[in-house]
Each structure stands twice: as structure tokens, then as C-alpha cells.
């Protein structure tokens, strides 16, 4: 049976997703608090995978817990920390525990995280991981050997609508869709014009676009993100707006809300990134609906 995310996207219904990070330890209470705070307001919750190359609990365990709680997860899976055996066994484990939405990612550089001396794997990349998921859905492993039980994943991929030169990223987007990506969850977007251009490129490929909305709290936070988080780039005009605002946190919510509202006419959904401020999710969702 298709996931709610898959069903809503197929029915052209606007979807809202948010994300929570598994704990750096085995106490899941804070994780669960975050997830239950955002879950009533979204269609699915992304569970990050050692995001920013910082060591956390495996998203498989955390996502399975969400399933148990009746919350639909999107399990993020990166190619940085596991080889092809590890990725496939993780996927089989996910399928067996009821985790069916997967966001297939390459993974941030290990040098930007908390275990910089470690060796990054990158045995597969995001395209090859998507192909592997498609093979498993067809009842085979990546080498074509038949599985005892096919998976039924709804796989997605990442995209960066505002990156330059965009044209150099286009072939990989095409490959991702050909490899079975049913949706793109994008990096943070700040320009509805750029998002519209991106959607015009991607829509003919037959893939839904869920636009990333980043909720900023201050100009300082935006500058920190620009310096330290790969793939995120807050434009100067947004930073200036935060800098000159009397209440920068409220301005950040206003910026995110404006972007989210404009997405309604452009993309298939939004993905809210509140950087741990889960209480903002209901506020922004209420504002756009």
C-alpha cells in the first residue's frame, strides 16, 4: 500500500513535511517530543541520517519508532557511512519495520562533522542508491539476486534549485528521476522565481517538488549557516532583512511564511526546516492554510 506521502503527491494534494534529528545517545524522549509536536501538522517527518556528518542514532531505529507511534517517517539515507552491503541491509530492515519513504542522499563531507578523522565511504552515490531501491522494489538486490520479499519504497532525492551553475546539476536530476525518484525535497529556497524555474525543469520529468523552507532566527544564524552548512546559502537580501528587523526571530518566521505561501502555487509541497524550533511548525502551517 502506498505511503500517505505517495498518495497525496499522486493526488496533487499539497504536502507538508518537517524534519527531526535522532539523538546523540540512546534516550529517545526529546526526539519523540519533537516528532509528536510537529506530526499533527505535517504529512510526514524526515528522520535525518548523521546530518552534517555528526554522529547520531541510526535513522532506521528512530524512524521505526515513529511508525510505532503512528507517525509517517521519511528515512534519510546517505552513502557516506555505509557501503553497498550496509545500505541494502539497512533498507531491508527499514522495509520490515514499516518505514517505506526513503530520501536517498549522497551525504555531507565527513570533514564538516564531529568525526573528521573518519573515512567516508561513498561506495554508491545517490543515483546508484535510488537504482538499488528500485531494484529492491522489483524484488532483487542491486546485483539482480532475488530477494525473499520485495520492498515497496517510495524514494525521493535532494535537489538544489538555487545552486549555480544549475545547468551542471541538471543531468544528475534527470538520472535521479530515471533511477526512480518520485519526489525531490529541495535545499532551502528563498526566491519563488528560482523555484518556479526549477519546477519547470523538473515537472516534465514526472517528479514532485517539495520546496525546502528554512526558518531563520537572526542574521548571525544565517551567516553561520552560510559558513558551515554545505548546500545552504542564505542570500544577502534575506540576511539584511533579518539584520534590520526589530524582532529578527519574528522576521525569520515572516520570511519563511511568505516563501511557504508562494510555494502553494509553484511546488507540490513544502519541507520545513526549523533547526530544532519545532514549535514554529504549527505556526507556519496555520499561516499558510
Amino acid at each position: 500500500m502506498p505511503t500517505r506521502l505517495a498518495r497525496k503527491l499522486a493526488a496533487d494534494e499539497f504536502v507538508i513535511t518537517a524534519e527531526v534529528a535522532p539523538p546523540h545517545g540512546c534516550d529517545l524522549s526529546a526526539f519523540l517530543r519533537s516528532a509528536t509536536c510537529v506530526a499533527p501538522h505535517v504529512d510526514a517527518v524526515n528522520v535525518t541520517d548523521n546530518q552534517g556528518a555528526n554522529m547520531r542514532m541510526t535513522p532506521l531505529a528512530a524512524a521505526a519508532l515513529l511508525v510505532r507511534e503512528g507517525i509517517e517517517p521519511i528515512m534519510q539515507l546517505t552513502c557516506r557511512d555505509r557501503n553497498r552491503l550496509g545500505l541494502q541491509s539497512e533498507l531491508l530492515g527499514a522495509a520490515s519495520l514499516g518505514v517505506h519513504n526513503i530520501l536517498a542522499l549522497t551525504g555531507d563531507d565527513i570533514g564538516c562533522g564531529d568525526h573528521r578523522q573518519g573515512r567516508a565511504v561513498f561506495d554508491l552515490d545517490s543515483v546508484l542508491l535510488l537504482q538499488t531501491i528500485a531494484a529492491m522494489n522489483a524484488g532483487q538486490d542491486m546485483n539482480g539476486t532475488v530477494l525473499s520479499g520485495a520492498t515497496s519504497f517510495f524514494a525521493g532525492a535532494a535537489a538544489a534549485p538555487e545552486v549555480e551553475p544549475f545547468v551542471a546539476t541538471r543531468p544528475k536530476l534527470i538520472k535521479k528521476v530515471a533511477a526512480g525518484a518520485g519526489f525531490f525535497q529541495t535545499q532551502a529556497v528563498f526566491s519563488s522565481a528560482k523555484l518556479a524555474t526549477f519546477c519547470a525543469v523538473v515537472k516534465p520529468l514526472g517528479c514532485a517538488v517539495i520546496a525546502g523552507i528554512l526558518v531563520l532566527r537572526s542574521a548571525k544564524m544565517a551567516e553561520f549557516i552560510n559558513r558551515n552548512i554545505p548546500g545552504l546559502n542564505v542570500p544577502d537580501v534575506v540576511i539584511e532583512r533579518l539584520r534590520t528587523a526589530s524582532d529578527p526571530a519574528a522576521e525569520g518566521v515572516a520570511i519563511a511564511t511568505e516563501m511557504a505561501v508562494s510555494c502553494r502555487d509553484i511546488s507540490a509541497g513544502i519541507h520545513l526546516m526549523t533547526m530544532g524550533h519545532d514549535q514554529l511548525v504549527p505556526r507556519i502551517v496555520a499561516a499558510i492554510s
Partner: protein
Amino acid sequence: MIVSTQKNIDQILTALDGGSRVFIVGCAKCATVCKSGGEEEVFGMQEELTVAGKEVTGTIVIDEACHILRTGRDLRSRREQVDLADFLLVLSCGAGIQSVAEACDKKVVAGTDSRFLGNIRRFGQFEQRCSLCGDCRLNETGGVCPVTVCAKGLLNGPCGGMQDGSCEVETDNRCAWVTIYERLERQQRSGQLDIATPARDYIHEAHPGSLKLEK
């Protein structure tokens, strides 16, 4: 060429602890070009060791220290000096160091760290372009190796960290996949980038590698 850099003198002296007599081996090829173990560096090391209270029983710069039989022969030609030494300090790449280790039973000390197979930009500037992966794909990528030049070794295009054409990992470097795209675009071959490259077969990188040419 193999790019190597000399270990710092404290590391070398620590490794030489417990012996006072040292025979120094350099290499006339790569280690000379990257100034980690040529005539000049062997002489400099001799001076430093002498200052540190060591006795240098002799030195040699072998034409190609990676040549196992030649290294053995050259060391035999200096047998007296070698026999007097407690340690052989080798300033060459790891291949040369192991030729020396195979050629005699003396304790061998590595005085360098081997870094990469490097292209030479200009004197003293080296860049890694090839990882010796054993499965060359330069025909498909406009002559730019994604396995090496992409910091993540990705086969199917840039990662999400590319920004303004720069690499996520080393922002001073241009993204390998942007370079590949631009080259293939100029050659009107960019369409071939729409087809996924299969996963690598690491059998080509199994080690220790060996090759015997058939006669």
C-alpha cells in the same frame, strides 16, 4: 610521480631512538623532484642527525629506490657502511622504503610520508589527478577523473554541496563535475551525462596489486 613529504625531525629522531649509527638512503627520482629525499635532502638530514648526536655511517641516493633488485645491489655495494649502522633511514616513497627493508635485515626507518600520485604544476607544486583505480573512465568524463578530483569520488554528477562551481570539501577547488560538464558541453557531448554510470567494481583496486608482463 609519487609525491612524498619528509616527516619532521622529531618524529625521525624518535624512530631512531635506541641506536646512534645511521645509514641514510635517498632516491634520485620522485623524492628528488619533491625534495623529500634527493642529494640535497640526504645531505641536510646528515647534518641534522649529526647535530642531534648521531653518527652517519654513510649515505646513498639510489637511482630508483622502488626498483627492488637495484636497491639490493646498491646497498650491497656499501655493505661496510650499512653493516656499521643501527638503522637505515630511508628518504623515498613507501615503495622505496620497502625495497630497502627487503634488501637487508637492518632496522629500517621511514623518513617520509607518501602522499599521492601527482602531476607537476610547476616546480614545487603537485596535484593529484589519478588514484590508480584500475578502471579508467576518463573517456567518458572529458579527461577529468571524478574518482580523484571529486573529493567524494562521485560517479554521477555533483553533490548538493557544490556552490558557485566550487567544491564543498575544498572550496578553493573547482567542482570536478562542473568542470566535466563544461568540457563535455564544449565538445557537444554533455548529453552523455544523462545516463547513469554503474557502481564501481572494486576488484580493480584489490591489493597488493601485481602485474607480470607476458613475454
